[in-house]
């Protein structure tokens, strides 16, 4: 499901720190952090470790050895708050790396955009579940944590078919009413974004 021929579908890559950047901030969704992933971060970020800060959002209490300085944040909302706190003074030469599920990646990216990060300063790496954030094209509500190809809209209750069309601004996939033509005829739900 990560492969699609729809152009708006983002492509995620392994994080590759840019050595010329002045500061490096790695924001990790804790529940997706596996020992293998931590080892991959340790080797990728080793060279820039003196200028690396890691924000670990939730997840394991005991992380073990890691490069850079580690900060713990309780939730995604704390990341958004900390980013928008202007006194942190993010510079134009800094880089932001985000690792986690898609809803996590795009909410962090959006918050970073608000404080002036350019898309060229941000790298996104997918880890963990494929669950989606869905934007209802009818009532414009967001439904989080969708794992099935058909989901109920949290706003209007319509049965939405989760498309592959992706909005970077909303960090969400488009959901369109599945039974618009024949009301009540809703195909069986399948777990496709586990």
């Amino acid at each position, binding site marked *: 499901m990560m492969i699609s021929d729809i152009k708006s579908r983002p492509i995620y890559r392994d994080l590759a720190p*840019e050595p*010329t*950047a*002045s500061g490096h901030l790695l924001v990790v969704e804790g529940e997706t952090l596996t020992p293998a992933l931590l080892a991959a971060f340790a080797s990728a970020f080793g060279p820039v470790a003196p200028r690396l800060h890691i924000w670990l959002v939730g997840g394991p209490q005991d992380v073990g050895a890691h490069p850079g300085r580690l900060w713990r944040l309780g939730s995604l909302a704390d990341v958004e708050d900390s980013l928008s706190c202007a006194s942190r*003074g*993010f*510079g*134009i*030469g*800094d*880089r932001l790396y985000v690792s986690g599920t898609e809803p996590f990646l795009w909410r962090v990216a959006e918050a970073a955009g608000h*404080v*002036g*990060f*350019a*898309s*060229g*300063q941000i790298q996104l790496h997918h880890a963990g579940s494929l669950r989606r954030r869905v934007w209802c094209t009818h009532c414009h509500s967001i439904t989080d944590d969708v794992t099935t190809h058909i989901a109920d809209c949290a706003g209007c209750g319509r049965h939405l078919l989760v498309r592959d069309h992706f909005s970077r601004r909303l960090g969400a996939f488009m959901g369109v009413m599945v039974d618009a033509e024949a009301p009540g005829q809703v195909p069986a739900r399948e777990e496709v974004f586990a």
Partner: protein
Amino acid sequence: MIGDTLLLRVDAATAIAPTLRHLRLVAADGGKLPPASAGAHVQLSLKAAARTHRNAYSLVSRPGARDAYEIIVRRVEASRGGSAFIHEQLAVGDTVEAAWPGNLFPPVRTARHQLMVAGGIGITPFLSYLAEFGLSGASHALHVCCRPDEREVFAPWLPEGANVDFHWDADGHRLDIPALLAAQQAGTHLYVCGPAAMNDAVIAAARDAGWPDSHVHCEHFGTALSGGEAFRAFLARSGIEVSVGEDESLLEAIERAGVAAPCLCRGGACGVCATPLLEGDAEHRDHFLSPTERESGRLIMPCVSRARSGRLVLDL
């Protein structure tokens, strides 16, 4: 007045410094001019005795002004011809043909902070930026590197409250470019316009400080070197061979031969002059072709690029 060209009349011409001439150009028919935005330029056709020079100049008039276009022209040593013509021959009342104004260097209006670095006459595009930022209230800073005696020259174009710093080559007054670039907040856009060496130094310093390319902008106008070793070029479609002198560009030689070649910036930035290269080894000096296009050796930008060795054959 819709058309390819505008006919302008020189309404006023003033020497604002020994090497700087300010021109106020109005529509020859007394009508209104097309409006231009901050960072825009106008390309003039200057009919000198030997040939027509087509040079582009940044507009320093207020963005959107329709009564007149104002430009400031520096008399360059070893002039490419156009600036000498403006300084020595153009007089009040003369008419000049011009292309509609274009803009290859507009400010990014979503920037959180606008950081401008100018070298000498490279201040001109930023004079219209400052006029816009004065109105929009955009956060900005302009750093100008010039000779100490040039500081006052541009004062009439600096809006009140504009954030401008002058730097010159003396202890305590030099601009520390790496320090300036290291201390900028996220969301800042950098613009640089000056001599080629300065542009290159600022762009390199920005890279070293980790700036994303998307936030670094350079006006290459007339700053790319067009001279070099003399060489010959054969224009296959016209069946003409031209010789390109040491201090003229391939484009100028083509124009001298009377062959019409499209162009706009004449500085290797806009891409308008791209010409198929049929044979020969080009020395690419433009900022337009991608590395792959350069390697393919099939295109050349005659406004700045030359032959590395031997003869070039162009599809012109």
